[in-house]
């Protein structure tokens, strides 16, 4: 089991650890999931996401052409220091991983899911020209700072971050070392992700804590992203689901949706033209019942029409929230559906996403 550079720091803060993707990660601290969730929404919280892969690929015309074969983005469109959300695609159009890619000096930085990163690198290296170099940066930690007070807290530590716009980044100085900060995150709040050398990360995180940001575990990270309607790999996304079914068409660049030229294009083109047979939806149970992953979805006429992929209680919307896949003809917003929990059918509606309104700084 691996540990991040902040393991002892978490321990001193009273973290409860769980194994996650081969790492011992904090699931929650002393406050507990609900309080941590609310602290992030109302003030600011920091998350150690150093288990995620930080892959650097040296860039040239050839590497961009290669990457376009497995990532359906228009690489010419990505400006210096701009980040984009997209995927690695397999031959059938399924999602190998979802990722954030940023154009940086000399190439691209890609943030990968912890559980997928080793396989991702295999898939990427198969596509790359032998002249392209890539490196998984194990000397770097990754900290997310999320919530309405993130900007003022971070600005007081790192001068100039105020100028960053959503999904844009840049190099900044911290204790004489270069750190890379993007304005991004996965909670539905304004916030930042800070890529910082392991040797500096504890001092940096202590400063965040001193300025009032709360430590947030994986538990609240999940309730926050679910309220924000964001997909989690292994739940809403996997190798058998394509981005059109996941309702993430927007994450395929316009030129690529017209021209294709990436893996799985035939299947994706078909779904773009003819529509999909199943699609990702938000689900809001009518009572307090919580529909967990694997819960079956039924129609009013008792036909099995889908399945829940994530479900929990949303502390900010103060009700249960879930996402799942449903036969497309039942996917209209506000349609009445039924969830089978512990042998009983419970009423729910198809909900628009997100459950919780975002407040990004554009």
């Amino acid at each position, binding site marked *: 089991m691996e540990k991040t550079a902040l393991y002892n720091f978490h321990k001193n803060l009273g973290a409860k650890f769980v194994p996650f993707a081969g790492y011992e990660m904090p*699931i*929650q601290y002393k406050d*507990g*999931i*609900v*309080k941590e*969730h609310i602290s992030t929404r109302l003030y600011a919280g920091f998350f150690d996401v150093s288990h995620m892969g930080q892959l650097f690929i040296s860039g040239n015309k050839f590497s961009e052409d290669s990457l376009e074969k497995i990532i359906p983005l228009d690489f010419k469109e990505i400006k210096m220091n701009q980040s984009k959300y997209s995927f690695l695609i397999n031959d059938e159009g399924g999602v190998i991983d979802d990722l954030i890619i940023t154009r940086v000096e000399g190439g691209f930085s890609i943030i990968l899911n912890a559980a997928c990163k080793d396989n991702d690198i295999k898939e990427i290296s198969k596509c790359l020209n032998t002249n392209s170099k890539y490196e998984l940066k194990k000397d770097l930690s990754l900290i997310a700072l999320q919530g309405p007070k993130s900007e003022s807290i971070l600005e007081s530590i790192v001068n100039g971050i105020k100028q960053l716009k959503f999904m844009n980044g840049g190099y900044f100085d911290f204790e004489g070392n270069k750190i890379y900060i993007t304005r991004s995150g996965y909670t539905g709040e304004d916030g930042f992700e800070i890529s910082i050398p392991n040797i500096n990360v504890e001092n940096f995180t202590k400063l965040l804590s001193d300025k009032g940001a709360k430590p947030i575990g994986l*538990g*609240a990270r999940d*309730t926050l992203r679910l309220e924000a309607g964001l997909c989690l790999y292994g739940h809403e996304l996997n190798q058998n689901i394509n981005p059109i079914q996941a309702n993430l068409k927007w994450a395929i660049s316009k030129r690529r949706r017209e021209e294709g030229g990436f893996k799985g294009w035939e299947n994706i083109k078909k779904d773009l033209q003819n529509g999909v047979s199943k699609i990702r939806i938000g689900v809001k149970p009518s009572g*307090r*019942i*919580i529909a*967990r992953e694997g819960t079956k979805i039924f129609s009013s006429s008792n036909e099995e029409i889908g399945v829940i992929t994530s479900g*929990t*209680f949303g*502390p900010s919307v103060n009700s*249960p929230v879930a996402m799942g896949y449903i036969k497309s003809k039942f996917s209209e917003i506000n349609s009445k559906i039924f969830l089978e929990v*512990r042998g009983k059918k419970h009423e729910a509606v198809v909900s628009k996403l997100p459950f919780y309104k975002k407040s990004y700084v554009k």
Partner: protein
Amino acid sequence: MSEKKYSKKHEWVLLNGESATVGISKHATEMLGDIVFVELPEKGKSLNKDEKAAVVESTKAASDVYTPVSGEILENNQPIVDDPSNVNKDPENNGWFFKIKIKNKSELDSLMSPADYEKFKKDNPN
């Protein structure tokens, strides 16, 4: 009023004449985290010892609650259904789950005293 007794599954029982009040221990709520959903047995339902009686869900997962004694449900605690955080606030008092008419008092003998439960928790972390 007699002494509170505890089961190995972290339920508590407080005997009061021919009936008993059942809930989950403070230790159980600490392991579960924030409770966000409670489902209780209906009044009049007959249950056997160690049978599934209720469900609690935290933000993380669902768990079953078993009845440590056999009997008939006399009453359930609606305030914890309406606001499940009441269980976390006061698990061994106002956060009770149900009252049950006891069928066989000797079943209580197999349960633990508060002192034995303290020891059990230490020997069985998690």
